[in-house]
């Protein structure tokens, strides 16, 4: 709740910067605001308070909103160029912060009305930001496609909520679970559950609802893509998990097989299509789809490990993505394109960037001792212990395919030669950011218990 209030105020302050002309101060102000929010949010640990019967700030909510705020702090450092170039930077700040507030609602809701509002508050600024490069056709397409498909998915979600309300007479996720457990819910409940599953699967870009993701991720400006791949995905998965863990656990027999098939399809479709891509940005987009598949394993498992393992996974994946999109932004700017070939010979011209990118990609591929390895390990263990051995086998095969395309970039950086070599200047704060993310990736890989043990 403190995080929500602080973030909303920060968004309004960002809007006021235009009027009272303290635009120059806004960037440090937002950074300080995020640090303050992180600290105040951490104070809520262990309190488990319920606000207005609408939001429940339990440890799950505090842990996930800490991840969201922490990752958005890293994102703001990475994306500083995004806010410097444009004349309407205050609007960008406000939109990003509002969507972060929506993300915080999505991890702490206890009522379907709040879930829907959270998703919309997160999504609507994202539709705008995806299309914010107005003179770029691809960006326009991304914004338009995201808006149309997102609105369609919201329709499914809303229809599902309405049917569930009709069947159980409540919007409260605990009350719904109790009504269903008492056997008092009519069969419309299951139709509602399926429709909500479709809506949520769209938001996390799980197959077969992932077709929007590659186009949107490729067309959107790179910092916005990084935001969508990290914050939006983390919030959507936390909301997905909270909904199914608290509300639909009793009816797991209905949906487990659907989610199992969905997870398998997502992992295979994401990884196999990623292999075929020549654009590194599009490849990372498909890899993001594939990672949604791995995270669905935690949802399928639905045991005591799933919350901790998804927390660990979202953190490891977000840190890896921030780094890889940050390096991609530099390379694409220097070489004028985001093809895999533009990474050729990066290790010679800029060994620092190449090393940072290698660590991030190793983490995304799940190679020890990086964070990604333990994230995958814990999530696979959770699914295995829930008795989904076949799905874990598919996941391991899919990860092996994943290693292939992540190594394509690493090989391009270290073993291939480029015709025109450009030295890339990395700004000091980005150097600091990359050092932090690399250290974080390795530290999480060495001490995963610190995060896993939280939930």
């Amino acid at each position: 709740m403190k995080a929500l209030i602080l973030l909303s105020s920060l968004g309004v302050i960002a809007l006021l910067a235009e009027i009272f002309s303290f635009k120059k101060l806004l960037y440090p102000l937002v950074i300080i605001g995020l640090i303050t929010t992180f600290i105040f949010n951490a104070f809520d640990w262990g309190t488990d308070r319920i606000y207005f019967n609408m939001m429940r700030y339990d440890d799950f909510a505090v842990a996930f909103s800490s991840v969201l705020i922490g990752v958005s702090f890293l994102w703001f450092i990475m994306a500083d160029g995004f806010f410097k170039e444009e004349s309407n930077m205050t609007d960008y700040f406000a939109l990003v912060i509002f969507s972060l507030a929506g993300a915080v609602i999505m991890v702490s809701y206890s009522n379907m009305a709040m879930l829907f509002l959270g998703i919309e508050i997160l999504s609507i600024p994202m539709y705008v930001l995806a299309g914010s490069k107005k003179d770029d056709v691809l960006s326009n397409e991304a914004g338009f496609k995201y808006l149309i498909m997102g609105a369609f998915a919201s329709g499914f979600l809303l229809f599902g909520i309405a049917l569930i309300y009709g069947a159980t007479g409540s919007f409260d996720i605990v009350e719904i679970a109790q009504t269903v457990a008492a056997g008092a819910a009519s069969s419309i409940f299951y139709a509602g559950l399926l429709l909500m599953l479709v809506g949520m699967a769209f938001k996390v870009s799980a197959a077969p609802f992932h077709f929007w993701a590659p186009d949107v991720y490729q067309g959107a400006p790179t910092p916005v893509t990084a935001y969508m791949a990290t914050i939006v995905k983390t919030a959507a998965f936390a909301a997905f998990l909270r909904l199914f863990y608290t509300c639909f656990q009793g009816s797991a027999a209905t949906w487990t097989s659907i989610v199992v098939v969905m997870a398998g399809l997502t992992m295979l479709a994401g990884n196999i299509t990623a292999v075929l891509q020549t654009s590194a940005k599009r490849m990372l987009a498909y890899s993001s789809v594939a990672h949604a598949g791995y995270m669905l394993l935690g949802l399928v498992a639905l045991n005591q490990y799933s919350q901790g393992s998804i927390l660990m996974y979202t953190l490891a994946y977000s840190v890896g993505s921030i780094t890889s999109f940050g390096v991609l932004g530099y390379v694409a700017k220097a070489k004028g394109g985001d093809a895999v070939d533009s990474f050729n010979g990066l290790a010679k011209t800029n060994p620092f960037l190449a090393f940072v990118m290698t660590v991030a990609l190793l983490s995304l591929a799940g190679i020890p001792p990086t964070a990604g390895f333990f994230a995958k390990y814990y999530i696979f263990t959770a699914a295995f212990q829930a008795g989904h051995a076949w799905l874990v086998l598919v996941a391991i095969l899919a990860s092996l395919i994943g290693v292939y395309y992540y190594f394509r970039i690493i090989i391009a950086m270290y073993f291939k030669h480029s015709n025109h070599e450009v030295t890339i200047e990395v700004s000091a704060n980005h150097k600091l950011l990359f050092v932090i993310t690399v250290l974080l990736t390795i530290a999480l890989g060495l001490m995963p218990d610190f995060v896993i043990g939280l939930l």
Partner: protein
Amino acid sequence: MITQYIFYFLSFLAIMFGLMVVLSKNPIHSVLYLVLTFFAIAGHYVLLNAQFLAAVHIIVYAGAIMVLFLFVIMLLNLNKETEPHKNVWLKLSAAVAAGLLLVVMVGSLKNAEMIAATNTFDPSVGLIENLGKTLFGEFLLPFEVASLLLLGAMVGAVLLGKKSIK
């Protein structure tokens, strides 16, 4: 008894106009049929004792949003000739997917039993007084949070609409 007849009549109108929205070739006709569908649904709201919702539904949907639809259609100048032809397989798969959704809906409705009304009839339930009390009591937090949504949407619309100053 008479409410039941009205219910069936309104349902018939809503479904028929809904079909006409999809089937009519001219987009302007589609929009006008959609207005009629909204009126039929507003009638359902009145039957459910939600008078305020019915009035708002007509003002907002049939009034404001449909005018917006008409404007967009006229600005885009859509007519029969410019309608793009879709792939047959695309049409077929869309029909199969929508048909499956229909099967799920019908199946779940078939098994659903009627729940007897638990609370006694209260004619004032759909009036603004009760609505306001619920909105500012039980749903206070979502009501306040919705302001974030509207503010975000407004800022976004302005951002997309204004010319970037170089």
